């Protein structure tokens, strides 16, 4: 039973918690850079979640090699891995953009604090 709990934690609740930590950051943080970091944490949580969904018990990497020459039903699921690859790249792209945006906001308004930007925002 303990084993079951552990697997649930590591495959589902753990990644989700990381995701929600990011969300918590967005709920409470006022600094634009911290918000960008929160978004990144969310993305990490999501990526971890996706990868963990591809886990197959005692599986090999989905690559044919000299050692694994033919199809065995013990390969890990390649699809989530491919999805994660795409998701990572997209999150990198968004991060690059959002950081550049933060720099511009800082140079224009002189602050990255949302409470101070609040009046200008509306």
């Amino acid at each position: 039973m303990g084993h079951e709990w552990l697997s649930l934690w590591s495959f589902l609740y753990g990644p989700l918690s990381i995701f929600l930590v990011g969300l918590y950051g967005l709920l409470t943080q006022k600094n634009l850079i911290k918000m960008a970091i929160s978004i990144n944490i969310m993305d990490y949580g999501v990526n971890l979640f996706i990868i963990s969904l591809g886990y197959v018990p005692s599986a090999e990497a989905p690559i044919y090699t000299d050692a694994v020459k033919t199809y065995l039903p013990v390969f890990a699921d390649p699809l989530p891995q491919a999805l994660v690859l795409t998701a990572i790249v997209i999150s990198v792209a968004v991060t690059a953009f959002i950081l550049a945006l933060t720099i511009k906001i800082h140079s224009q308004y002189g602050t990255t604090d949302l409470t101070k930007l609040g009046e200008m925002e509306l």
Partner: protein
Amino acid sequence: MIMQNPVLLIAVPLLLAFLIPVFSSFFKGAVRFIPVLAGGFNVIAAALLIPQASGDVAVTEIGGWASAYGISLLFSSQIGYMILAVNLTALLAIFYYILNERDLGSPLAYPIAFTLALSGANGMIMTGDLFNLFVFMEMTAIAGYIIAVHKKGYLGTFRFVVLSSVGSAFFLIATASLYNATGFLNMAMAGKNLGALSTPFISVISVLFIMALSSEAELLPLNGWVAPVYRESSGAGSVFFASVFSGAALFAVIKVMLIVFGINYAYVHQGLLVLGLVTLAAGEAAAFKQSNLKKMVAYSSIAQSGLIIAAVAAAMRSGVLHNGLFNAALFQLINNILAKALVLLGIALLGQATLKEIGGAGTRKKWLGVFISAGVLSLIGMPGFAGFWSKLFLVRELVGNRMFVFTLVFLLAALFEAYYYLRFLQSLFLGKSTTAASLPKTSWVTYILLFVLAALIILIGFAPDVIIRAVSGLSLGGVL
């Protein structure tokens, strides 16, 4: 044969966009025409594709892989009309950009963003694969970020980036879970295998999808970016958001709801219905008090999204698909795309931001005033213009299906919408301007753009047959 492949609607703009940096090192000035090329190609290609499409959905496989496993595009004449409307308005926005707003920012970035946004929007409309939808959503969104900062509206864009990133994170969780549980990313296959799953799982997935798509489709919880982005973006940018971006996103929501969840999960649609109605009411309420024109249109755009989604959800709610209501919603969507584009282009051409500042501008620029009124009267739903018919059909279907609360909310919202849009027209024609600023010059080419849209709206207004047959004839087979 090859020209009939709908993938070209995505691939050609992509190719052209990639070539922009290459071209720019040789002919700097020519770069700006590339988006026009892309938009023009898409409009023509879509117009050529529609007659060949039937009401049934044709599946185009990409890479030759069986459609359940690889990525496939869906095409039917319904989708074709959506694409045509979206690309046409995008083309007009691009023209406007070239004519009036070229010097606002980086000469390389905006053509690229426009072209890729086109491709992304087409992808969102056509794709039949969940993860592919995510990719295209991100593509359109990032192109949207670039378009939104066109006039240095950093704060609004920041909001947009954060909210849309949160949305896409939700989308990824939902997609990955759906893959794990059903084994497929293809919408139809995932939807097929969904039946074996338990209610809590489906409801969590559906909530995640609703949240995720709400940021792009301007629905309630994640649409805080809409008003500041509209306000801060350039004229072409606001047209892009109101017509291209939200049109494509709304269609994507409709597609996911219809293909993945189908009509069997009343509770999913119930939630969406409530959310849509709340969005409708809140949007109109917020728009009612605005004196900034773009913000007014932004909130009204939010409200319209709510209306369309609510109507679609209502059409699927009871275990049968109400074709009439569904088609009325799509008709409304297309009308909304056209009319919003016209109004926003007009507002951009007025060059003034608030109700007071535009006072009397319509009399100084007669034609501009006339075109804007065509758009506005269509949005209000006055006879003689396209919007009349879509509102009429919506009421007919709502009353016909005995959805009285929905009818009440819809009509009340329409009432307030009529009020503030009429106020806008009033100050356009009869107001006295508070600023002495002269109106920006408008070239005849721009007038042609406006004329095209206005003519379409009036054409549909007098011969609703054109579009009704287009939208409703399709539903006889399958709706999408």
